[in-house]
């Protein structure tokens, strides 16, 4: 399940992009879910572990992926760590929910991310509540972050 802690969190990795740059391996890039996230968020194709075809920047290395997709891959590949997911835009929200379906992960959010109109299941660690929609989430998260 995806668990979310809202607000400041001392043990969080605040800059996931930097952590990614210094820890990623080839397998992080060629993983099937990573490929899908890179395709969806960055509109880029993984050609191989060290080369990605970006429609804007041309051939790029994994270090030049967007901050959002780097954060998603960190959350997916290092579920024992807690990352600042406010480095992700709303277009990453569905992938956070997907990751939460296949493993237990905790993220830190410092803003109200829009998880969309559908139903989902996340746990708010600040209050212990299980949440199933944005209608339920906003009154809870809105008391902690803006």
């Amino acid at each position, binding site marked *: 399940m995806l668990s979310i802690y809202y607000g400041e969190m001392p043990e969080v990795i605040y800059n996931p992009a930097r952590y990614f740059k210094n820890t990623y391996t080839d397998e992080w890039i060629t993983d099937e879910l990573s490929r899908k996230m890179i395709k969806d*968020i960055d509109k880029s194709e993984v050609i191989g572990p060290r080369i990605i075809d970006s429609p804007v920047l041309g051939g790029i290395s994994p270090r030049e992926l967007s901050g959002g997709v780097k954060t998603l891959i960190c959350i997916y590949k290092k579920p024992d760590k807690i990352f600042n997911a406010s480095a992700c835009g709303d277009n990453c929200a569905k992938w956070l929910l997907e990751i939460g379906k296949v493993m237990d992960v905790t993220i830190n959010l410092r803003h109200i991310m829009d998880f969309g109109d559908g139903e989902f299941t996340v746990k708010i660690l600040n209050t212990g509540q299980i949440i199933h929609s944005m209608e339920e989430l906003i009154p809870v998260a809105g008391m902690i972050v803006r």
Partner: protein
Amino acid sequence: MKGIHQITISNASVRYEFSLKRNITVIRGDSATGKTTLVEMINEYYESGQESGIELRCDKQCRVLGGRDWKTLLPTIRDSIVFIDEDNEFLPTDEFARAVRESDNYYCLITREGLPNLPYSVEEIYGIRTSGKYAGLRQVYHEFYHIYGNHRPHELVRPEELIVEDSNSGFEFFSGISEGKNYT
């Protein structure tokens, strides 16, 4: 520093054109829209000028601020446009808000976090989007758009009730402008 400042920055791949209208502008929005690329280009142009291969047009110097030494660096920057990327933990702090208030720079802040200590307008919160506008054979053109729309509330809103936080200046202000109107 006052007024509107137009910035155009480009390399062989991308081109950005936007105006900063007030001293604090916030950029947020979806991932992979080019926010960090913009900041990196501003920094590379500052470091190397035209030798960077980047073209920048602006009537003010554009700088990037970041890292642990920001407190030392910021007082040395004057009459400039300062860009700060989202990976800087000092952005929502009181200390940074004080430093901004004491300086005459414009600030372009990339963050999704609320910045309750800084007085910025909802009209100056932007996203970046790719435009169909012609930029060049290989360039992708980026422009800013209002995240929260471009409203003209004085033309559209006719409130029946106004609720203010307390009975001080906010109440007195709205009482004044509500006189003779059918508000409660």
